[in-house]
């Protein structure tokens, strides 16, 4: 399976537990990454468009967030293919982390941060 871009992987993770609209996806990513990853509407919808075309996600009609129901909001749902792609990417990253541990890269980075 192809390597996912960070933006695609973040969006798939945001949709893994529930359907969300664009701003909901943005918020989830910001909260989860402690404001380290922030996507603007241009990046978000450009990525969503490509993900729709490659069937990693699909649009859904149900309004999950009735308080924020607005005609303009579009809700997205992860597909089976998207879930498989996210799992494959997570495994790939896990394997990289194992290598980093084996080569003591992760430990030295952690020690460096502690000293700093």
């Amino acid at each position: 399976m192809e390597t996912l871009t960070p933006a695609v992987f973040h969006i798939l993770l945001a949709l893994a537990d529930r359907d969300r609209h664009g701003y909901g996806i943005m918020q989830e990513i910001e909260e989860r990454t402690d404001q380290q990853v922030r996507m603007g509407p241009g990046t978000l919808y450009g990525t969503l468009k490509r993900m729709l075309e490659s069937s990693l996600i699909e649009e859904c009609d149900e309004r999950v967030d009735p308080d924020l129901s607005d005609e303009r909001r579009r809700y997205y749902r992860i597909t089976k293919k998207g879930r498989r792609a996210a799992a494959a990417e997570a495994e790939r990253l896990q394997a990289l982390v194992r290598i980093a541990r084996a080569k003591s890269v992760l430990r030295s980075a952690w020690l460096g941060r502690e000293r700093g």
Partner: protein
Amino acid sequence: MISEVLYRILLKAYPARYRHNYEEAMVQCFCDQLRAADTSGKQFRLWFRTMIDFVLNVPARYLEIQLRTAPGFYSERARRAIWMAGLEAGSSLQGNVEIPLLGGEEIGLEHLLLGTLRNDQELANVLLGAHGTETIARSIHAQRAHPRRSLRPHYRDRPPLSEGCKKALAKAAQEAQDSNTRVSSRQILLGILHQDSSLAARLIRENALDLSCLRSSSDPPAAGPEV
């Protein structure tokens, strides 16, 4: 309010079709961000990030369009197939002769199917047998839900691609990328087949003698004039 108006003005720089699909959602998203930015400092930072987002993404959207329409991306036959699908969706008068075509408000999967089959007779013969294309054309005429649009005198103003058609072509592009080739007639048909519930996909499945030829690695040599 002023911010929303300014953001809408910025969005006009995006390609028209992209804007048609995403403008309202993007404005909604920006307004949500604006509501969350409750101090002038936060609003300034939001505008700063928005401008960076804008500068990076507008060229990217145009580049995507360029790449997808680049001559190297589609084989000659695939390009002709899409061109013929446009003809199927419109209707044409050549001289004083009306060419009987499907018509429609946009290029749908049925148009793309007929365009591909009529443009690649060799593949159509292998896939469907000698008269398979016309059998499919008759079935589409009989089963299509959309009424035919009135004749247009000229077919240069190609109708837009339907969502199903875009997905089929995106799938075809993915198939081509996976096999490291350009998009061919075969891959367009595979893309159409991927739209499971469509009339076009059903007609291929019902009429195909052997679908395995679509996975064959070699494309029959292109023939006929370039488009």
